[in-house]
Structure formats: structure tokens, C-alpha cells
């Protein structure tokens, strides 16, 4: 006997959601969140309550100017650093031992010492070589703290970027070089058209981190009297003795870093869309 099922069997209902019990973890969570929110909320409330239109009118334009100097400094150093990092990365990858060792010592020197010490070395050290610098006409350059900062920052970020680039180039499989050679491309063509585009995708995330690192690191130029955002903040605090000057600077820096991070995340998503398997 054959029985034909004419009715559609109703699927079983999903089990009811487990009621989340109130336990120790949950209590800790709420306490931690409450502590965070009350701290940040308290600081925001303080900023609102302590709003002083006179203070803002006096210092907001200065902060704006400082912000422009910070961004200009970071952008200039990053561009010069990127340009210098290419030959350093090439030297690091060179089969010539001596060239490789030289590039490695450059990278180690700049990555192993604090940026602050490097800036001091350039800024105060240059003053010592004034006659020599004057004789070659470079004194005008090193007299300005902004130039000294860019000089030190560019050398520093070049070392970091060279390592990023080297790692990325080495991460491209050797077969890619061989395939390019088999197609009859010269080494330069292979590098430019096949290796570099793949390497840059690997390097994208570390590059983003380097930009943020540079932006945060740039605050130290305030110590050598450059009036960047941090410098203006320090000046405003030393004149007004109002703690909100520092809090406003924190808000601005945080906004900048988060903006860059978000832009970079989107950029990365866009540029690697061909590598994703899901839709």
C-alpha cells in the first residue's frame, strides 16, 4: 500500500530564544559600560558646561591654524618618506650583501630610536654645524623648526615605509616573477606591472597604520616650538590654565584618527573587492 502525502509537513518552530540570565558577567558589563559612559559623558558635559564663547573665539582660529600645520607637516613628511623608501626597499632586497647591510642599518637606526631623539638630534644638532651649513647654503633650511621636523619625520617614516614595502614585495610569490619573465617582460616591466600592484594591496593596511602613527607622532613637534595643533594647545593652556584646551585637542585628534581609519577601511574594501569570495 502506498500512501501519498498530500499535505505539506509544517516545519517545526525554532526553539524559543534562551532568556539571557542575569549573571556576574552581565553585571560587570553594565558596570564597565556605566564607568566608560560616565567618564566620557562627564568630560563631554564638562566641555558643554564650561563652554566659554570668549575662550573659543580667542583660540578656535588658532587651533584651526595649528591643525593645518599638523596636516601639512604629516602630508609632506609622508610624501618625501614614500619617495625615499623606494630606493631603501630596493637596497634591502638587493642581492649585494653590502648594499643590503647598509639599508638594514639605516632602517634599524631609525626604527630603534625614539622619534623625539631624532627630532632633537636634527634640530639642536644642526645649530652646532651652523658655519658649515651656512657655507653650503643650507642654514636657512635648518634654522626653521618646521623644516627640521619634516626632515627628521621623512627620514623616520622612510625607514618604516621601506620595511612595509619590502615585506609586501617579498610576499608576492616567486612564480609571478617567473611568469613575467616567461612572457618576455623585462624586470622593470615585471616589477611595475605585475609585482607592485599585488604588493601594494598587501601593503595597504600597514600604510594606513603608518599614516595614523605619523599623525599621532607629529604632536611632538610642539616641543621644538612648532605651533601645530599640539603647540597651539600647549600655548592656550599656559595662558588660560583651562583644562578644556587639552580636552578639545583630544577631541580633534580622535576625530582625525577615526576619520582616516574609516576612509582607509573603505578604500581597502574597495580595492580588494576582487579578492573576496562572498558576493
Amino acid at each position, binding site marked *: 500500500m502506498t500512501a501519498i502525502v498530500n499535505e505539506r509537513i509544517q516545519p517545526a518552530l525554532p526553539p524559543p530564544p534562551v532568556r539571557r540570565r542575569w549573571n556576574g*558577567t552581565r553585571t*560587570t*558589563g553594565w558596570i564597565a559600560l556605566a564607568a*566608560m559612559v560616565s567618564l566620557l559623558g562627564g568630560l563631554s558635559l564638562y566641555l558643554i558646561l564650561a563652554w566659554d564663547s570668549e575662550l573659543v573665539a580667542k583660540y578656535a582660529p588658532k587651533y584651526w591654524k595649528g591643525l593645518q600645520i599638523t596636516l601639512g607637516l604629516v602630508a609632506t613628511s609622508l610624501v618625501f618618506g614614500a619617495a625615499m623608501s623606494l630606493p631603501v626597499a630596493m637596497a634591502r632586497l638587493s642581492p649585494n650583501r653590502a648594499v643590503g647591510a647598509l639599508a638594514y642599518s639605516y632602517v634599524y*637606526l631609525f626604527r630603534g*630610536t625614539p622619534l623625539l631623539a631624532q627630532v632633537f638630534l636634527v634640530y639642536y644638532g644642526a645649530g652646532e654645524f651652523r658655519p658649515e651649513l651656512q657655507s653650503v647654503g643650507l642654514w636657512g633650511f635648518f634654522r626653521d623648526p618646521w623644516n627640521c621636523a619634516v626632515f627628521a619625520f621623512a627620514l623616520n617614516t622612510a625607514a618604516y615605509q621601506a620595511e612595509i614595502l619590502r615585506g609586501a614585495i617579498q610576499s608576492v610569490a616567486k612564480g609571478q616573477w617567473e611568469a613575467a619573465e616567461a612572457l618576455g617582460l623585462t624586470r622593470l616591466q615585471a616589477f611595475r606591472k605585475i609585482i607592485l600592484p599585488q604588493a601594494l594591496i598587501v601593503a595597504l593596511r600597514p600604510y594606513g597604520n603608518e599614516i595614523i602613527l605619523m599623525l599621532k607622532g607629529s604632536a*611632538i613637534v610642539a616641543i621644538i616650538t612648532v605651533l601645530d595643533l599640539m603647540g597651539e594647545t600647549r600655548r592656550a593652556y599656559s595662558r588660560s590654565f583651562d*583644562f578644556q584646551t*587639552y580636552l578639545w585637542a583630544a577631541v580633534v585628534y580622535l576625530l582625525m584618527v577615526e576619520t582616516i*581609519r574609516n576612509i582607509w577601511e573603505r578604500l581597502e574594501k574597495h580595492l580588494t573587492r576582487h579578492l573576496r569570495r562572498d558576493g
Partner: protein
Amino acid sequence: MDEMLALLSLSDTGWGDEIVSGVGVTISLALATLPLGLLIGFFVALAKQSEEPTLRLAGNIYTTVFRGLPELLTLFLVYFGAQIGIRQLLLAMGSETTIEINSFLAGMVALGLVFSSFSSEVFLSAFRAIPRGQYEGGYAIGLSRFQTMRLIILPQLIRIALPGLSNLWMILLKDTALVSVIGLSDIIRQTGIAARVTKEAFLFFGVACLLYLALAILSSIAIGAINHWAARGDAPR
């Protein structure tokens, strides 16, 4: 050459002894910050991988704030903020005394906050690298949550997190240079004073750079030894 050696000598006329004491301050600050930053970072990582959304949110806010602020600004916020906060507290209690914040303590707290926000990310990715079965195996043989964490998860976690943490140690060592700004007599401050007095800025800041480099090399030797120790149970390759 002889003049330079005289300037760097350990005697009363040379600056060597001052600089050596600066090296001591730098090392002790970094060593004092390390456990603080590791401990906070570990708990923040625990919060960020918790099932409880409020804990995750709190952990993420913490990381976002202290990872995004410039280290120098964090230092000033802690240094001046604590000073003002304590004064307000004392005023509220009816006391007029002003308290100077110890710059070593302020530096330790500020660098600890920064270090912990970065180390929490390292710990978090190490947590994610440990399969769930390790926890379940621990519970299955009757270990409590704490025992599972201590005896099964933590030993694996440390090995996975070591490379990331050693990077952070190198960064911490360099970040200690910032405390010279709030008046702590570390390498940078001592060499800076010497440079101002003797007008030999290039020599003394060069020495400072070399000292940091030496500390970095010593650290990588120590880290190599720790790595060797951590990998002693691995299968020989």
C-alpha cells in the same frame, strides 16, 4: 676625541654619570609600565571577546580612545588632569593644599593606558586563534572556568601573543622618551641638559640615540631567549 671622552666621563666634570642615571630611569619606567599595561590589556581583551555586548562595547570604547590619542597628549591629559582632579577633590573636602603629581607615576599611567589599548588587540587576536574545543575540553574534564583559563588557555595564549607583545615592548621603550617633557630625568632629559650646558647637542643627542639602540638590541636578545623558552615544548623542526 679626547674632549668628547672627557665630556662623557663618569666623573664630576663629565656627563656620563648623569646619563647613566637617565638610562636607569628609562629602563625602570618601561619595566614598571609593562605589567600594568599587560594586565589591563588582558582584561580589556577578555571584555572584547565576551558574549556580553555591554562589556564588548566598553572594551571597544577604551581601545578606540587610547589608541587614537597622541601619546604626548595622553601624557598631558593624565598629568594635568590628575592634578586638577585631585585639587578639585581636596577643595570639595575643604582642604586648600595643592599636590604635585609624581611625573614617574603619571608617565607610568599614561604609557600603561596606551600600551594596554594596543596589547588588548594583540591578546584579542590570540584569543581568536585558540579553538573553542580547548575551552570545552577543559570544562569536560571538570575544570572550572578560572582553571580552564589558567591551565589551558593562558599557556597557549602567551605563545601566540609573544611576537605582537615584543613589538609593543619596543614601542614602549621608545615612548618613554616623552616623559622627559613632564620633567622626568630620563635619557633624553639628561642628555638635553648636557647638550644645553656644553653646547655639544649633536654629540649628546647622538649618544642618546645610541643608548636607545643599545636598549633595543638588549631587548631583542632577551626576547629571543623568551621565545626560545616559550617554544621549548614544540616539536623539533
